[in-house]
């Protein structure tokens, strides 16, 4: 039964059962992630529907070009992950390493962009919560004019949503780093590549969350 890196736990009958169990478990976990984020989406929907004009105005302070860039970066990383699954299934592990490195790079770009966005906001007094005190002029926008009731709610939601999403990206980067070393050491084969598959699923979900965050926070 044992081919390269294959480990059948004693309590499973066969590999198919083990793989299916792991995948179902992962999907259940992803669903908990969806419901975790759903709370933020509900808060967003409630406050947006109460103060639509404030939310429309506050979102002007976010740079949609950076948001779009990050969307493209994340989509690309999802693509490379999907490709890496394709190649691990074919046993072409050198390509898998390259693709996962590209994924890691995309994730890093995403975080760097996020860093510039956050620091740009912080330097002009746009903080979540009590510290909210926008000032200064950026791109012809006078930030101090945005010190209006309920704008703090928008930015609280923005920071919490993107913050939690960012944490997920960081976790994903850690996972990819770990995967790359394992692929490079030849731990995976077409017969057993469960960690690659599961990490891929996780990463796609992080992408899907961003697909919704981008228009809700930056565009509309």
């Amino acid at each position: 039964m044992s081919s390269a890196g294959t480990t059948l736990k004693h309590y499973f009958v066969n590999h198919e059962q083990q793989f299916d169990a792991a995948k179902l478990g992962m999907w259940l976990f992803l669903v908990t992630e969806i419901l975790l984020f759903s709370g933020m989406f509900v808060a967003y929907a409630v406050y947006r529907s109460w103060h639509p004009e404030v939310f429309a105005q506050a979102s002007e302070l976010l740079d949609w070009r950076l948001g779009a860039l990050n969307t493209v970066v994340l989509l690309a990383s999802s693509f490379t992950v999907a490709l890496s699954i394709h190649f691990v299934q074919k046993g072409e592990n050198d390509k898998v390493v390259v693709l996962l490195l590209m994924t890691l790079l995309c994730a890093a770009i995403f975080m760097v962009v996020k860093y510039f966005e956050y620091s740009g906001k912080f330097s002009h007094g746009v903080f979540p919560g009590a510290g909210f005190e926008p000032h200064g002029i950026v791109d012809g926008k006078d930030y101090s004019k945005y010190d209006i009731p309920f704008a703090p709610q928008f930015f609280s939601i923005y920071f919490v949503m993107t913050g939690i999403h960012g944490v997920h990206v960081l976790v994903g980067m850690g996972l990819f780093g770990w995967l790359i070393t394992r692929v490079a050491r030849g731990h995976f084969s077409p017969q057993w590549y469960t960690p690659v598959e599961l990490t891929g699923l996780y990463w796609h979900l992080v992408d899907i969350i961003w697909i919704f965050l981008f228009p809700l926070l930056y565009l509309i």
Partner: protein
Amino acid sequence: MSEASHNYLSAKKGLWSWLATTDHKRIGIMYAIACGTFFLLGGILATFVRTELGTPGETILDQDGYNQIFTLHGVVMVFLVIIPAIPGILGNFVLPIQIGAKDVAFPRLNLASWYLFMAGALMAVFGWLFVGNVDTGWTFYTPYSSGASNAVLWLTSAVFVAGFASIFTGLNFIVTVHKMRAPGMTWNRLPLFVWAIYATGIVQVLATPVIGITMVLLFLEKLMQIGIFDPALGGDPVLFQHFFWFYSHPAVYIMILPAMGIISDLMGTFSRQQVSGYTFIALSSVAIAFLGFLVWGHHMFVSGQSALSSIIFSMLTFLIGIPTGIKVFNWVATMYKGSVWLRTPMIYALMFLFLFTIGGLTGIMVGVLAVDVHLHDTYFVVAHFHYVMMGGALIGLIGGLHYWWPKMTGRMYNETAGIIAAVLIFIGFNLTFFTQFFLGSRGMPRRYHDYTELLENFPEFAALNMASTIGSYILGIGLLMILVYALYSLFKGPKAPANPWGACTLEWTHTGPLPDEHNFHETPLVTRGPYDFHLADDVFGPKEEN
């Protein structure tokens, strides 16, 4: 090999063999020790609360002390006892054996769940002992909680962490039931306890993340004033209640569904009869799990939410009441033309039916819009949810522990002691909580430290409160008695046979008195349903013709 080297307890020795175990049975025992300790703590806190209320005025606690004690009682009992106990103890111990699996699907995750649970518990205790007092009530309503002491930060984090323990437990069981059943163990041959734990898993996975994000937001509200829930900053405190109850109402089903599963198994085994309406009970567990998500707003009829949503939530509440009622009818009908054996577990099953029916019927009462306006936040509600959570969930757990005790420990307990304790608990429980229905419907609000000033208009409050307090002592004595004879049984009890109750499920028919480390010598082949006593020649011997 000697018999001793064959079972899960003797397979490995030493503390580390427990702390690092991935054996679902040992993890179940570890949950039993943890939850038992917390239950003792929560119970002691409860007697403080009742003693304070026994007489008017300040009895043993001042206002702040009382508020902290009832808060802690609620937090400990809800998050550290009732929610984790049945899935953690009995789900872990019994479920994999009942479906013929060697372990759960993710044993290491299972162990991690226990550590997360303990980490959450320790964070709560640490916050309470070293950071500050928490007097928010277990519901953490804003803006009171966001203005309270920093220990709230610890407690919310604790709930968040313990929540993930609950998620991973539920996830593990769902996958186990889907993927790990033995040959022949079809969905309609699953014991009803398995169905119940499966349905519970669905609730744990879908609801618990929302309490997670709620606690994150409350944490940030307290830490950074993000203004989502605090009205002084433009937030909405009622929104917090939506968030909180979106989890905490389904959590009631995390508590009660597993107990219903235990009762189904007990009614079948001790009536030696097929559980009436097996398919209905199985599927209604899942239906209740889903419907449980649609009714949270019935906690908020007087909160200021829209009348429209109050009406929707009230209507949906009754939808969930009907399948629950039908389950009760089915359990009673199971005894019809059966062979009813009144051993201790069955006494608890019947007690469950008695108490849970009262809890359910008073649930209808507080689900009715106009009546709830009067009863909301009074002792009527306190009595109602104790009938459901303690009379339902905990009595179910105690019954289940008595039922599976021989399988878990290999020993029998004293039957007479068991029945005496059960009677004490029954009397004590009803004296404690039935009086609270009167207190509540007459208008005594919950979470009151004192009722002296109400006595002028409501002189009967003094006698009712005193009766309730006396009842709580009787209840406490009954529960302590269980602890005593359980410990005695553990060391001195007679050895248990493999199947003392004549049950038909795999944990009794296919293992020794104590299960092996990997449950079975060989994977069982299942050929009949869990309650097919008339086919169980392997249990009873060939049937005599007459």
